[in-house]
């Protein structure tokens, strides 16, 4: 099973198992990764599973669809390698994928 790495908002590095076929968001949720709210559960309807993909990895992911593009445009503090983790699907070639979880998913959070 591939392993992926989440850098939590606290800076903690969490290397976890990522079952093929799961979304990266589901992996985060099952491993209780801090800072991933994933309110809509993967419907691309809330933009609260936002992550910054490590630059070396960004180009290796499948490209964003229009819906994700529109959601990210107005997500909180998007960066050049931002993705919604619910739209990233785990495959064998993502072994070692590294993403950083932003300190906030929404404006209202302290």
């Amino acid at each position, binding site marked *: 099973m591939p392993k992926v790495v989440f850098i939590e908002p606290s800076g903690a590095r969490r290397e976890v198992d990522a079952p093929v076929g*799961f979304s990266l968001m*589901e992996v985060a*949720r*099952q491993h*209780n990764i*801090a800072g991933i*709210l994933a*309110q*809509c*559960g993967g*419907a*691309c*309807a*809330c*933009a609260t599973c936002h992550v910054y993909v490590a630059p070396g990895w960004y180009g290796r992911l499948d490209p964003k669809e*229009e*819906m*994700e*593009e*529109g*959601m990210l*445009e*107005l*997500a909180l503090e998007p960066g050049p390698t931002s993705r919604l983790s619910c739209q990233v699907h785990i495959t064998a070639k993502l072994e070692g994928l590294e993403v950083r979880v932003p300190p906030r998913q929404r*404006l209202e959070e302290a």
Partner: protein
Amino acid sequence: MISTILILGGGQAAAQAIDTLRRQGYQGRIVLVGDEPHLPYQRPPLSKKFLAGELDADRLPFKHRPYYEEHRVELELGVAAARIHRAERAVALADGRTLHYDRLLLAVGATSRILTTPGSDLPGVHYLRAIADVGPIRASLKAGARVVVIGGGYIGLETAATARQLGCAVTVLEMADRLMARVVASSVSEYYAHEHRTQGVKVICNTRVVRLEGGPRGLKVSCADGSSYEADVLVVGVGAVPNTALAAEAGLECENGIRVDRWCRTTDEHIFAAGDCTYHPSVHFEMNVRLESVDNAFEQAKSAALNLLGRATVHDRIPWFWSDQYDNKLLIVGLSQGFDQQVLRGDPAQRSFSVCYLKGRELIAVEAVNHSSDYMAARKMIAERVCPNLEKLADPHIPLKEAV
């Protein structure tokens, strides 16, 4: 000193409350009582990918069992709560046991509204709300099966779309003059009626089912206008009613749901409630609402958990909703009640448009069809009480966020 928090319910609100309690550092007992035998799970996929068989059951729970062990959550699943004894701060379970609490969270959700039409109790008449409902429906959704859906709301239409994609012959019967009439603008209703018809679904509005009969050729659904439809399987999606019985029997105030204040407190200071079961004040919209949504379950449970711990937190959010039907994503933010102006952005024929609602010039709600950037912009603008520039608002070439 709060040493035991008891949570009734096994859905989104319960899962979120547990998450918040532990992330906030609460170290005491958490006991979860759910009448379904499942770990708290996501309901939205039940009418979509889970019904279609595209999502395995092990992907429905928010968290798997090790999480609950690690976080010391005592699970009492598959057992119903029978009675709340407020004076003793205890809940009697259906199996005869009694659990005590310092604080109680009612996250008990809602139940499908039951059809009262004669014949409603026939085999082959289904509702869709819980995991247990899905199996029998899915087993009947074979290619060519005749499916009649009563109710053209979210659940009915999502079920219709899934059934159609599985190759069934689908008919939707709606009592109102248009689909999703309670929740969307007529242009959105028309768009969805067109989408379903294009996919081959028979969409019939203004029709009231008066009788169901069994027979050798399946179920016969008869309508007030004399028309009738044959079905191998019938799915009823005519709304939901909040689960208030426990609360009401315990003397908690209920009105279209369990009454809570902006701190998610019921009329008993030791008992809180969150999610579909509550009737609560919307601070932003200055009205009382009952919301059936993932968003409200999540946010209200989060606020409730903080208030349970004595950290006063007003539940003040802008509600949002979504629906997936075929390749269409409907995203709604805000509450349109009381609007005085509707502005259409874009052309439904382009399969991407939105409807903006204004009240006294202020943007109060947006329904976006396949238009995530309008939706995201609206979330911010509604929260900030923006009064958009009408000319720019009506011009789909100008991004919504710039229509000020």
